[in-house]
């Protein structure tokens, strides 16, 4: 069974989203995603200040077997990127909800997390 923390929001594309106290959101991929991908060998992330619409591809995660796009869960601007993953992509396998966070996003005005799933809804889609 995959770990699905209750305090996070989720997308159908297997990203997790955490709302921080300063109003930004942190994004990574779920335990289910890392387990399905297998050994992660490379993570390609955007630059700080890049802007995205919800649903845009903001990066790529590669495993031995395949390359998969990462999708923006919200509309906003990149405020921080986890550069540690460049040298240690395997962290995505070992700590997907912690050390392997990927981006921190400032939501655009009017953007919100209303369309994202809670843990129970996400658990339903990953069975």
């Amino acid at each position, binding site marked *: 069974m995959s770990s699905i923390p209750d305090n996070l929001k989720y997308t159908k594309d297997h990203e997790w989203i955490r709302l921080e106290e300063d109003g930004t959101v942190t994004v990574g991929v779920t335990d289910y995603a890392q387990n399905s991908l297998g*050994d992660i060998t*490379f993570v390609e992330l955007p630059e700080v200040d890049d802007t995205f619409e919800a649903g845009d591809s903001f990066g790529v995660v590669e495993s031995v077997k395949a390359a998969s796009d990462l999708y923006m869960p919200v509309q906003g601007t990149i405020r921080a990127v986890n550069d540690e993953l460049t040298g240690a992509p395997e962290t995505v396998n070992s700590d997907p909800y912690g050390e392997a966070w990927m981006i921190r996003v400032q939501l655009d005005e009017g953007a919100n997390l209303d369309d994202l799933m809670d843990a129970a809804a996400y658990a339903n889609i990953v069975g």
Partner: protein
Amino acid sequence: MSDSLKRTPLHAFHTDHNARLVPFAGWEMPVQYTSILQEHRAVREAAGLFDVSHMGEVRVHGSGARAFLNKLVTNNVEKLQVGKAIYTVMCYEDGGVVDDLIIYQVGDEEYFLCVNAANVSKDVEWITGQAVGFDCLIDDVSEDFGQLALQGPKAMEIFKLASGQDLSSLKRFHFIQGSFMETNAIVSRTGYTGEDGVEIYLPAGEAARVANRILEIGKDHGLQLVGLGARDSLRLEAGYPLYGHEISAQIDPLTGGLGWVVKFQKATDFVGRTALQKRLDEGLDRKVVFFRLEDRRIAREGTEIIDEDGNPCGKVLSGTQSPMLGRPIGSACVSTQALKDKIPLLVEIRKTRIPLEIAQPPLHKV
């Protein structure tokens, strides 16, 4: 998992050991048990045990079997004797590859062919069609056999501990038929990983018992179960071709780097000889090469190879990350002119152009 997928005699063994099972060549096979990278490294550094029971086995026997096989395949079957095996390919008339295979001579007039899982039906039909006029019989005995591969620097030591029989003096591409671990088996000093080891053909019903014994004894020596994921990365690091990638109906053995198994000088004619001789005489227009990349992005199958001006020069055939190097490796079919002119070759992955470093296998030994 679809009900139509075939299962090897080790299916329950795989689920007991938490394998991730995937469809492969019509079979439900373990792609990994723990991690592809970890399983790969275990084979390079200690030992790995693979279920390769999906591979096909074909028995060819009769007084005309030797002459027939010499016509069927490109390598020289006259070099065989009981207890020896050869690696070869069989070709279509136009030189394209039907399959690559190992032929074992198991009796004076009896041979045992190991062919690729995905090709068994096609191969048996092809072999049977070519045998007209030869005094020999062809039987698909794939269902009768399980097959295990024990590979790695500690493989021979583990085999000795598990079986009580020391095969360390058995030469590469030689085999022994007899009683091993209380069952009849063919044990050959062959493999598909670039490491020392054996491949064990045994009655299907005995495969799980023997696999359990080897695992039980081997785990104290670093043995791990290994799935098809690491089997692919191991063979690519070693520079071994995979049917459908480096060789195929469209990629002949000369182009595929298997010129060494095409024996033009052998006494008998063989299927595809005329076409292959013509290609050799005219000069090959493309060639399979192996490469490494100085990057983390993997150049996957189908990625175009380009020159510095963006002109196409070939295509990637196989691509993965070398677990031993931590860098991408692969194979590609490239224009011989581009290789001759030594022009810098590149791949473009997600708008990043990365130079291709053409390299001789084994790719993990830099």
